Every structure is written in structure tokens, then in C-alpha cells.
């Protein structure tokens, strides 16, 4: 075992330095920041779009006094429920009739309310009427009540702790953490698919296979790619933290996950490593069968779809703590890291994590062994009985 780890370390060190000391690694580090910048730009644009007044406009075809009552009522209601909650009002002439006015080009109103606050008549397309009927009724009612309608002030009683809010916050943390490690895994583990192609193309695999156990080659490659991913994550994490620290509004506090932030971050790191090595070992095993980059590219799509399915499974489970699907997601090795991280956000018990990590590590070992077996059989044209190969020692 010690010899296998030593050999794996030699392979890992070579791969790690080859990747990290290459020029393309700079692109790798900067690449993910580009979508973030684009996202921020689009976010700003989205915000501008959101703040643009897109509320429907309702024409008010009433006499001046009634129209003014409607406008005052609208202003009072807006004060309490927010401007976005109600349609805008705009006075329109009493003639021609609303249906004719709406038919005119450039009328600028979605519907017209005529009559009086006691008997408002809403003219418009059925869909618009459906949407606006309740709002107009509310405004008209407020207009009728006018002075009699008192806006009741709500007394504020603040508490430091709300278990309901905390549970919701923890659920949110669980979801966000799942999304983060999923995207990191999907971004980074995919590269492993093509990892052995270099060795096969350059005929180095023969030298490696003669010198070290194939298990060590697989493990070394996984270790190297995981270490490289951590370098990337550290870089992106620091960048994100700097941006967050720069943009953070004063007084904003994050909800605390059930296990506390330090343990949660540790578990997040461990579960990312497990998710990465689980998928990575699978990808390595699949990719090792491919002999060209083209074959690897062909494998990319089904593999990504598989990842998405696992993610949706784990995401579904996060809302149903303790339910059979959640337990299944925690047990199924590929969804287990995602499900367990979400669990860490919502459940303070630590022993299930220890169990889960051991379970996931066992699967990594099994998947590597199966990958090695397939590699020996189909690439090196070696091997014997499946079971004998599966359980024989790495050096034997």
C-alpha cells in the first residue's frame, strides 16, 4: 500500500506540475471569472430592467372629482404595499367611449376604468381584465372609504432568534452549497475524461504500466487533478471573497449552518473532494478506454447528462430531510456528497458524515479498481477472471 501511494505521488506530482506550470493554467484560472463578470454585467442590466416601470397602465375615464379620488386612493395604497404591486393610473378623456379609445393607436393604456368609484366599469381584453379587476376593485374601495380608511401601523417586535427563519436559511445554505460543489465538480471533473489519452498517445503508458501498479496511475492522476482543482478553487474563492467583502452591505449577516461554519466549510471541502474523486474515478475509467481525444469528446455529453440527473436527485432530496428519497440520495454514492452537504446545513449531527465519507471513499476505491480492470483487459489486453482481477493486490 505504501509503495502504491508512493508511486501515485510520483504520477500526481508530474501531472500537477505539468498542468500548473503550463501557460494554459492561467486561462483555466481566469476562465471561470469571465462568466462571473458577464453575470455581474447582466445582473446590473437585469436590475435596470427590473427597475424600469413595466406596470400596466389603466386609463381613468371619470369625471375630475372621481378621478382625483381614485388617484389619492392609489397613492395611499402604494405607500403601504409598494409601487410595483399596483397598476399605474392615467387620466383619459371621457369621450370617445373606452372601447373606441382602446382601439386607437398610441392610446398607451392596457384597460380603461370608467363610471365612478361606486360603479367602476373596466374595459379591456379578457386577460387584462382578469389581471386588473382585483386591483381596480381595491383602489375603488379605498377611494370610496377615503377619509374613513385608516391605515393601521404594525408594531415591530424584533427577536434575535427565529427557528423557522433559521431553518429556511439553513435550507438555502444547503441548496447553495449543493449548487456550488456541483458546478465545481462538473467544471473540473470533466477534464479527467481525457487524462489518460496523453499517456496513450505518447506511448508512455507502457513505461508506467511496467514500473508501477495501474491503480497507482489512476490514483495519482486523480490526486493531481484534485490538487489542481483546489488551487483553482482557492483562487476563485479568494476572488469571490474579495468581491463579496467589497460589495457587502453593512449589517448583512449570513445564516449559520447547523454544524457551524468552520465544520461546514471543512465538510464542504471533503464532500467536494469525494464528489470529485467519485466522478473523476468513473470518468478516468471511461476515458481510459478511449484512444483519441475525439472519442473522449463523444463521451462528454452522456457523462454530463448523467451528472445533471444526479444533481437533480440530490436537489430534490434537500427539501425532504429524512424522507426515503433523501436517505437514498445520501446512500447512492454519486449523489451522496451533495445530499450529505445539504444535510450538514440542516442537521447538527456529525457521525453520519464520518460514515458517509468512509462509504464514499470505499466506492472511489471500487470504481478505480473496476476502471483498472477494464484498462488492463481492453487496453493492455491483459487480465483473467473478473473476480480474480478485482480482488487481487495492486502489485500482483
Amino acid at each position, binding site marked *: 500500500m*505504501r*509503495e502504491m501511494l*508512493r*508511486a501515485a505521488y*510520483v*504520477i500526481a506530482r*508530474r501531472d500537477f506540475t*505539468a498542468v500548473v506550470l*503550463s501557460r494554459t493554467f492561467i486561462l483555466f484560472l481566469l476562465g471561470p471569472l469571465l462568466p462571473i463578470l458577464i453575470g455581474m454585467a447582466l445582473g446590473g442590466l437585469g436590475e435596470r430592467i427590473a427597475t424600469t416601470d413595466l406596470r400596466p397602465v389603466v386609463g381613468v375615464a371619470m369625471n375630475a372629482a372621481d378621478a382625483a379620488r381614485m388617484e389619492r386612493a392609489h397613492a395611499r395604497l402604494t405607500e403601504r404595499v409598494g409601487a410595483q404591486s399596483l397598476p399605474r393610473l392615467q387620466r383619459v378623456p371621457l369621450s370617445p367611449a373606452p372601447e373606441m379609445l382602446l382601439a386607437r393607436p398610441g392610446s398607451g393604456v392596457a384597460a380603461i376604468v370608467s363610471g365612478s368609484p361606486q360603479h367602476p366599469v373596466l374595459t379591456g381584453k379578457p386577460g387584462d381584465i382578469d389581471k386588473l379587476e382585483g386591483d381596480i376593485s381595491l383602489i375603488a374601495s379605498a377611494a370610496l372609504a377615503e377619509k374613513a380608511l385608516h391605515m393601521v401601523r404594525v408594531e415591530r417586535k424584533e427577536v434575535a432568534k427565529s427557528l423557522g427563519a433559521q431553518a429556511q436559511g439553513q435550507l438555502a445554505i444547503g441548496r447553495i452549497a449543493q449548487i456550488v460543489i456541483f458546478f465545481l465538480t462538473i467544471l473540473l471533473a470533466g477534464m479527467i475524461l481525457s487524462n489518460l489519452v*496523453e*499517456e496513450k498517445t*505518447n*506511448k*508512455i*503508458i*507502457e*513505461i*508506467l*504500466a*511496467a*514500473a*508501477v*501498479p495501474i491503480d497507482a496511475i489512476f490514483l495519482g492522476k486523480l490526486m493531481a487533478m484534485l490538487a489542481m482543482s483546489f488551487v483553482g478553487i482557492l483562487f476563485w474563492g479568494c476572488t469571490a471573497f474579495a468581491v463579496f467583502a467589497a460589495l457587502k452591505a453593512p449589517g448583512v449577516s449570513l445564516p449559520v449552518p447547523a454544524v457551524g461554519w468552520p465544520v461546514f466549510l471543512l465538510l464542504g471541502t471533503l464532500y467536494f473532494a469525494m464528489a470529485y474523486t467519485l466522478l473523476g474515478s468513473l470518468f478516468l475509467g471511461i476515458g481510459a478506454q478511449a484512444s483519441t481525444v475525439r472519442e473522449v469528446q463523444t463521451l462528454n455529453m452522456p457523462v454530463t447528462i448523467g451528472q445533471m440527473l444526479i444533481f437533480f436527485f440530490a436537489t430534490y432530496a434537500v427539501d425532504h430531510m429524512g424522507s426515503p428519497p433523501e436517505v437514498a440520495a445520501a446512500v447512492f454514492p454519486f449523489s451522496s456528497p451533495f445530499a450529505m452537504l445539504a444535510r450538514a446545513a440542516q442537521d447538527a449531527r456529525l457521525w453520519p458524515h464520518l460514515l458517509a465519507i468512509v462509504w464514499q471513499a470505499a466506492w472511489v476505491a471500487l470504481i478505480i479498481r473496476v476502471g483498472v480492470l477494464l484498462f488492463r483487459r481492453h487496453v*493492455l*489486453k*491483459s*487480465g*483473467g477472471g473478473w473476480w480474480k482481477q478485482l480482488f487481487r493486490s495492486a*502489485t*500482483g
Partner: protein
Amino acid sequence: MIGDTPAPAPAYAVEGHGLVKTFGSFRAVDGIDIAVPAGAIYGVLGPNGAGKTTLLRTLLGIVDPDEGHRSLLGDPVPLRQARAIGYLPEERGLYPSMKAFEAIAFMGALRGLPLRVGRERARTMLEGHGMGASAEKPIRQLSKGMAQTVQLFGTIVHEPRLIVLDEPFSGLDAINQEKLEALIREQARKGVTVLFSTHVIAHAERLCERIAIVAGGRIRFEGSVSEARDRLRPQVRLRTRSSDGAWRRALPEDTVAQEGAWHFALPEGGIEPLLRALLDGQAGIESLSIERPGLHDAFVAIAGAAAARQMEEQQAGEQGA
């Protein structure tokens, strides 16, 4: 632990018994028995497709045999002796972006040599070979011959007790072939066992103490070069002034007239009775030579003329390339 405890040196560095390796219905190695004495230079000789590479890969544990068993340096699990073995595969392979000295050190590190020691040795080896200036260059910037030399150094940098070379002369020019021969002899002088495969009879004849002639996945001959040559009787080349006479009856039945001379295998009774007949019959002996057959002749006799022709064509093709 692999290779940590020096085991007493076995009499045979490499042993294989009843080895069979099939790919589908093709038996690449068909019941081979082989024993390479420790400290010997041992050649596996045969044309392309004879099963040489598969035999070496099977012995090294890269592939498992379907039948039979093997042992390297007395260990039935070749990987356990990885630190004491150096292997140069037929298909040369190096990481193109790696620097020459790093590539050598990396290959040593794979077999347990500390990287720092490997780097030092790599620089010394490259400088000793006149390649000091290339030590820092990436492999992709080296010529094919230089890259092969780098790989060869990577094979021996960890000072193995057994070196296995698959077609090591392939692709090398005459000067580098000579250097490689010198290097193999130097390793053998140090007590290292060298097992190599080749399709060039001359290399085997010059270097090997023992050879195995492989054809069709089987060993057709195993023994010393001398024993192989002894398989054939010495060849007699006779040139006479007279072209016919009673003395012709004294020539053996297998005599062939070629380029104005008579060629035949030395008769079992020796040369004296023939000489007497030639003198009595006044054949007029111009010249008479008795030559011991070369390994090439022995190879033709053992593996067959077709296999020998194939090897010659392969060699000619390489020289042409």
C-alpha cells in the same frame, strides 16, 4: 515492501515456464520456456510478429499470461521487483513538454529513485554523453535519436539489476547503435543482466552470450551463440583449376557450384579423405577454406529461410528510412 530488502541473487534473473498468451484466436506466445542467467546478455531474436514483444511484456507483468508462470529476479510478481528492473519498450514514449533531465529523473522516480538523486544522475549521464546542453530542453525540441538516448538513460538511471530492452537498436543511426552496444557491455560488466529483443542478427551475434530464436510464438532454439552456430557443420569453399574429373565423385551430395567455387558442408568424416581424393584426382586445388557458419546461417537453419528473409527486409527497411 517492493525491492527494499536485497534478496540473494537467483541463478536466473528471468524465468518463464509454459508461457501462453493469446489475443482472440491468435497465440502470440505459444508455450515458451525461457531462463536468462543472472549477469548475462541475452538476446531474443526473431522477425516481426514472432512474439518477442509479447513475451517481454508477459515476463515484465505488463500483461498476464493465460497459462504458465514467470519470475523476475526470483519473484513471481514482477512489479514487486520494479525498483531493480529497467525497461525500454519498443514504442518509445516521453512527455513532450518535459525537460530531458526531468524525464530521466521521472523515470527513475517511478522505480523508486529519489527525484533529487535522479536529477543529479541525469545531468551526469547527459553530460557524459555529450548532451549536457540539451539537459534543460523539452523533449519535443530534441532529435529522435537524442530522445531515444534520454529514454535509455531513464531506463538505467536507477541502476537496475535487470535491464529489458525491446528492439533497442531500432531507429538509431550507426554511431548511436555502437554507443548502445558499448553501454550494454558496460552494464553487463557491472553484473547487470541485459535481456533484449532484436531482429538484427549482427547485434545479437556481437553482444549476446545466450540467445533465444523465436518464430511463430515459440522458441525454436535456446542456448549460446556458439551452440547455435554449432548446429550447422562448417562450410567448405573449394576452388579448383579442373572443372571435372574422377575427383568430383568425392564431393558430398549437397555440393553447390556458385561463383566459380564449390560450396558444401564439411563431411562428417573430416576433410582429409576429400583432400586425398582431390590430390589423387589432380583437381588442382586453387583455394580451400573451412568456415564456421555465422549466426545468420544458424538462424536460417533454425527458424527457416522465410523468417530470415523477413528479418533482412525489416532491417533493410529501417536502414532505408
